[in-house]
């Protein structure tokens, strides 16, 4: 364990390299803006920036993309408090107490505690990430192809079941993603599959094209055109109020710590995400508070708890991706796509083969989390102004960046056309309540899963029972089976009992 902290220290020093620091600051500022802009979430932000970021040096690219993700958690709170408009889904609970506080003339105090909570939540999340990522990665080294295949099946099932209320549509989306991942030359036999005679598809579809289309364009298409926020309703504050106040921090210690810990552990679970973690943390803080009645009317604890949770969750969310190579959310799937694009395969071996890269990235997270405190304080007026930016001004800029970014991947207009197609597909799926996260995970994990299953079956002469020879795989597959069947059996049993009772 001490070894990990030593490596982290070296990582923080390595992350102080000017190139990486530029990436971190650039990503943090973009993330803050994305977080503050209603209609664009962190997954869209990371996806839009992906084609540009991969042109940086590899480590700086991932440091920048990571900074967009955790920066967005800081930005969402600003518009939530000042205008009552959550910048992204994870800031919804911040509105509940943050906006009433702002209306009572305590906007600066609410913003200050949200920044402190984001920092403490981020710091606790990072410490837990440092501890758990290495431990889980070390344990996962014992996993062979059979066990990893079983874990991948479990993660995909978990995301599909937990990520949506309609499991049928989740699995359809997942299978569509796996099919998209099959496009190109067969990984074992080398024959073209589903390329429709198009040579440009032989190498498969570049992940960033799909991510930009499905997350970036589709999210924009499906966002309602709202008139810009009324600036006159914006609460006033002074810069002096934004400075951390120790009396407020002392008052919020319990929700700060409970929110950070809850956020982290809920964030680890695939398919849950930062929004749900902030809701759970808020409910817990309210239930355990001596001042329950104040929640919802404008209390600092009600701001501290969800803000600590959503920041901590963003780091918890990275554990399955870094330690197992299995992303648990849309944003980490795009991050993993970035890692694959720069030639790195996330998973336990990443810690063994590329320790410098891993610890430099973790070091950049620590620097970014600290830097965001100052950047957020300085950028509060700009972030508040973002909420009043009309889609008519914002969308042309986003589309300009998207088109140039996608074109620059391989200087191909065919890629731009594919992005438009995926944007339309994503829009239709979103409108019909098909969750897009399983689709994106299917594209990332589908090829790995197919290769794992086929190689295992080739080595066992097509004998499927080989998956039952590993106790770990048996337990994981049994968990998957129970995850898919038990809730439905319970519901069926309850329904039958209710009918017979009547």
């Amino acid at each position, binding site marked *: 364990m001490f070894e990990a902290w030593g490596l982290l220290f070296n990582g923080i020093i390595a992350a102080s390299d000017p190139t990486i620091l530029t990436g971190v600051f650039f990503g943090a500022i973009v993330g803050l803006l994305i977080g503050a802009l209603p209609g664009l979430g962190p997954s869209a932000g990371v996806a839009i920036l992906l084609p540009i970021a991969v042109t940086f040096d590899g480590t700086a690219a991932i440091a920048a993309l990571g900074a967009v993700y955790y920066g967005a958690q800081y930005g969402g709170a600003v518009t939530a408090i000042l205008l009552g408009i959550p910048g992204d889904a994870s800031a919804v609970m911040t509105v509940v107490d943050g906006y009433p506080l702002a209306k009572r003339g305590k906007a600066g105090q609410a913003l200050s505690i949200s920044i402190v909570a984001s920092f403490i939540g981020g710091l606790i999340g990072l410490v837990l990430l440092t501890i758990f990522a290495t431990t889980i990665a070390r344990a996962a080294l014992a996993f062979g192809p059979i066990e990893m295949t079983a874990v991948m099946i479990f993660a995909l099932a978990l995301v599909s079941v937990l990520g949506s209320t309609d499991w049928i549509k989740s699995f359809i989306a997942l*299978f569509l993603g796996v099919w998209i991942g099959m496009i190109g030359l067969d990984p074992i036999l080398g024959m073209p599959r589903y390329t429709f005679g198009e040579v440009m598809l032989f190498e498969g579809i570049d992940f960033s094209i799909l991510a930009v289309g499905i997350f970036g364009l589709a999210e924009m298409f499906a966002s309602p055109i709202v008139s810009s926020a009324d600036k006159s309703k914006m609460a006033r504050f002074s810069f002096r109020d934004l400075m951390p106040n120790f009396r407020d921090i002392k008052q919020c210690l319990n929700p700060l710590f409970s929110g950070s810990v809850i956020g982290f552990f809920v964030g680890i679970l695939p398919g849950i995400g930062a929004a749900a973690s902030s809701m759970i943390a808020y409910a817990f803080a309210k239930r355990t508070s001596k001042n329950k009645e104040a929640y919802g009317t404008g209390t600092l604890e009600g701001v501290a708890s969800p803000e600590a949770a959503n920041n901590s969750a963003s780091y918890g969310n990275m554990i399955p991706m870094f330690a197992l190579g299995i992303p648990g959310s849309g944003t980490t799937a795009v991050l993993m796509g970035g890692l694959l694009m720069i030639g790195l395969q996330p998973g336990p071996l990443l810690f063994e083969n590329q320790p410098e890269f891993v610890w430099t990235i973790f070091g950049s997270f620590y620097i970014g989390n600290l830097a965001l405190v100052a950047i957020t304080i300085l950028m509060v007026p700009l972030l508040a102004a973002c909420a009043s930016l009309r889609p008519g001004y914002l969308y042309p800029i986003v589309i300009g960046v998207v088109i140039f970014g996608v074109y620059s991947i391989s200087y191909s*207009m065919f890629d731009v056309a594919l992005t438009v197609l995926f944007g339309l597909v994503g829009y239709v799926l979103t409108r019909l309540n098909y969750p897009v996260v399983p689709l994106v995970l299917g594209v990332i994990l589908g090829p790995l899963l197919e290769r794992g299953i086929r190689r295992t079956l080739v080595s066992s002469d097509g004998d499927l029972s080989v998956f039952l020879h590993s106790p770990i795989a048996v337990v994981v597959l049994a968990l998957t089976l129970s995850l898919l069947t038990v809730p439905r059996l319970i519901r069926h049993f309850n329904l039958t009992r209710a009918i017979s009772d009547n």
Partner: protein
Amino acid sequence: MIILRYVDLAVSLLLVAFGIYIVTQGLAFGYSDRSGVGAGFFPIWIGGGIAALSAVNFLKVVRNNLHLGTIEISEVVRVVFTSAAMLGFIYLSHHVGMIASILVLMLAIGAIYGPRSKVFYLWLLPICGVTTLFLYLIFRVLLGALLI
């Protein structure tokens, strides 16, 4: 207004057909070969899954009379116009280059999503102009991208 229930039914039927297409292609790739499993092994299972689950979804929507709400025709028109404008950009960039085309595209997108007011257009033009300049500086000058 477009009733999403009918769109859901139509998409489910399309997906059933698409799943069957994936399976038939998978059969052509071969379910198994001498090594054990062929290139069509995975497509057959995945295509079968898409077809079967889409059929279940179709029946669920029909039987339960599910209401998914509606969407405004204006929203669909906006999405179609935006996509058409982006495809138009691809065509135009081969004739006048990417820089001029992106400026035209951004103005078109602004017009699609913005209000019909003189003040809006007065602001839109410089915003698109400055963004075009930034795109040129970042992608051509800084990143060295080979623009058309």
